[in-house]
């Protein structure tokens, strides 16, 4: 075999944020085994196996900067995947100087200043409009909603997006969104507050599963009977156990299980989703969640681009990736998009699934189109994003 290609994995592996990095690394290692078994990446100079080099950035910009330097200058990686968020601005100067290709899970890291950062997988939070849109079409009787979220860089843009989506759908907000600190553990008071105006919909925004579970449990125990919508619902089977099938019936969220039959559809680009899911579940039982597949999905995209370019050099790969302004997103063909929100078309946006719990199991309802929604309601989104100071030129 030829010289292996090294890919950097720069995400939190220890500390409180490790759950956003570690499972992704696990997923990448499975991805690498599967690809390498097929002969690796086929470049102009032959086939190369892929190898991941991880650096634990502890969700700290300074450590991330050190890690990026190490991965680029010492390990000579060709591509670096990051979780993004707080550490990204620390890495930004390194990216600008070295021209290294980076990816993030959070498009809110994008800005026109950095041309080598792409957000090719999770178009957080834009995808959530599809869920609200579905709800409005299928459950027109729901008229009012409240939102709660942790006060951080995931929660806030997501709140703005939900506000836009609800407004577009004609659903009224009973009160302004309720924010809680990331260290909250007891959600009873928050749930009491959420339920106080008898809303038709309670929206959990992009709360992490650490929060979603206790919130759902509290909603159940305090006797909530309305609709729940959430961006993620990782380990929803556990929530079903803790509440009841009836209670969870009809909850809407956005992250499908990869054993969903709909994932075998031709329009889905994630390679052998069912097989990947099976393998992951075998090795890491009960650990499947959004991050498990997202980094791997980015690797699919990267591999296609590298093979198309015949080279693993960052500049070549980036060019091939962006070529034609379209790309094969995990959930279907998509376009490079985002100029208005992020100042640069580096987010790969297309369809996104709307998932609903049916009889205790997540089932994909449809793949909704984000650009289509944006074409109609883009001004609303921009309005709310501005209000929450989430536009790229407002993000200080």
């Amino acid at each position: 075999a030829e010289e292996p290609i090294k890919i950097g994995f720069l995400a939190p592996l220890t500390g409180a944020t490790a759950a956003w990095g570690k499972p992704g690394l696990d997923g990448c290692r499975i991805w690498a085994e599967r690809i390498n078994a097929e002969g690796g990446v086929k470049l102009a100079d032959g086939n190369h196996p892929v190898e991941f080099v991880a650096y634990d950035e502890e969700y700290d910009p300074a450590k991330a900067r050190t890690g990026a330097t190490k991965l680029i200058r010492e390990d000579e990686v060709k591509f670096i995947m990051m979780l993004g968020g707080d550490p990204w601005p620390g890495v930004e100067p390194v990216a600008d100087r070295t021209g290294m290709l980076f990816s993030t899970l959070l498009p809110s890291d994008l800005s026109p200043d950095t041309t080598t950062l792409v957000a090719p997988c999770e178009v957080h939070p834009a995808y959530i409009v599809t869920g609200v849109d579905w709800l409005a079409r299928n459950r027109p009787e729901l008229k009012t909603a409240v939102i709660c979220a942790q006060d951080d860089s995931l929660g806030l843009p997501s709140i703005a997006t939900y506000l836009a989506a609800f407004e577009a759908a004609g659903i009224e907000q009973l009160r302004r969104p309720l924010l809680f600190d990331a260290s909250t553990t007891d959600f009873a008071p928050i749930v009491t507050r959420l339920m106080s105006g008898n809303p038709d919909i309670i929206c959990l925004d992009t709360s992490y599963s650490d929060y979603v579970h206790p919130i759902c449990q509290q909603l159940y125990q305090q006797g909530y009977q309305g609709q729940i919508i959430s961006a993620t619902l990782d380990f929803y089977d556990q929530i079903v156990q803790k509440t009841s099938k009836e209670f969870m019936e009809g909850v809407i969220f956005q992250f499908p299980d990869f054993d969903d039959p709909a994932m075998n559809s031709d329009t889905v680009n994630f390679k052998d989703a069912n097989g990947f899911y099976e393998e992951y579940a075998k090795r890491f039982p009960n650990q499947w969640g959004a991050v498990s597949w997202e980094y791997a999905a980015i690797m699919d995209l990267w591999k296609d681009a590298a093979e198309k370019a015949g080279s693993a050099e960052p500049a070549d790969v980036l060019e091939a990736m962006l070529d034609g302004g379209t790309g094969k997103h995990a959930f279907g063909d998509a376009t490079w998009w985002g100029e208005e929100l992020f100042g640069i078309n580096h987010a790969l946006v297309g369809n996104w699934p709307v998932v609903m719990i049916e009889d205790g199991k997540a089932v994909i309802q449809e793949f909704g189109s984000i650009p289509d929604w944006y074409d109609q309601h883009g001004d609303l989104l921009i309005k709310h994003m501005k209000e929450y100071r989430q536009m790229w030129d407002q993000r200080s």
Partner: protein
Amino acid sequence: MRNLIFLAILAVALVFLPNLLSFSQREILVFLTFNVLVVATYRVMTLTGEWSLGHVVLMGVGAYTSALLSKDFGLWVPFSVIAGGLVAALVALVLSYPLFRMKGFYFLIGSFAAGEIIRLLWKWSGFRNVFGGTKGIKGIPAMPDFSVGFYSFDFFEPTSYFYLSVVVVAVCLLILWRIEKSPVGLTFHAVHWQDTLAQASGVNIRAYKTLAFVIASGFAGIAGALLAHYIGTINPNSFDLDVMVFVLTWAIVGGTTTFYGPILGCVVLTALNEVVLRQLGFDQARPLFYGLILILSILFMPNGLEGIVQKFTPRKEAK
């Protein structure tokens, strides 16, 4: 004389140090330089016997101030760094009023609460347009590059920034050292060991505690500002309890009776954690080994790393 030779050797060593290190180690070296200043200022704080848990937040005050002044008001970065130090000192002065009503354990937790309130204000959505909320501030202007004939400083490069910060930190350390060795420093010690007797000797202990707190915070603010202009981004989590705990352990594992003890602790523990343990490849187990190192070092060297140094150097004057 011996001291001068020692300092000369140290200076030469510092000039060549970056060349001996790998790229990422140079990055670590830069951060280490700031942290040396932070832990040295922390020592000044603890000279009066009060252990604060708000120190890194005050460092953060310096960082936020300098970042905002240079970014939003276009202040020349070297000035904004100094302003960062001044504002941190000022905030410490204000905080000293409520905080020094308490002492000992109460002060420890009181200072933590005060720091946490400041940090929460940075985070709070109400002030998001000033402090940037949980995401903090990014795009902080870098130190302006310049060249001095034979060497051009490019402050993106860790080596350049290291030279700059080593000079700044050295000047700060010199000042701190002179303070500690002066009658003022002696009075700090006196306040620590026996505050009633110090008072009976005419020492206004509250004023001296405040003085130590303000000085320590001011220089910590400078360290914070240096950090901010290097990485170009800061956020409330960069100054949270986890970071404070590291400073605390550096100071104690290094030793509490000498000026250089905490610095030694900072250098050794950082090298172990960031270089050795990472090189050994203990991904997830790294905190475990770091914890073990802390425990073993404190069990076997209850007097800190400085105790070892003292064993091998002749004692000049009994302290």
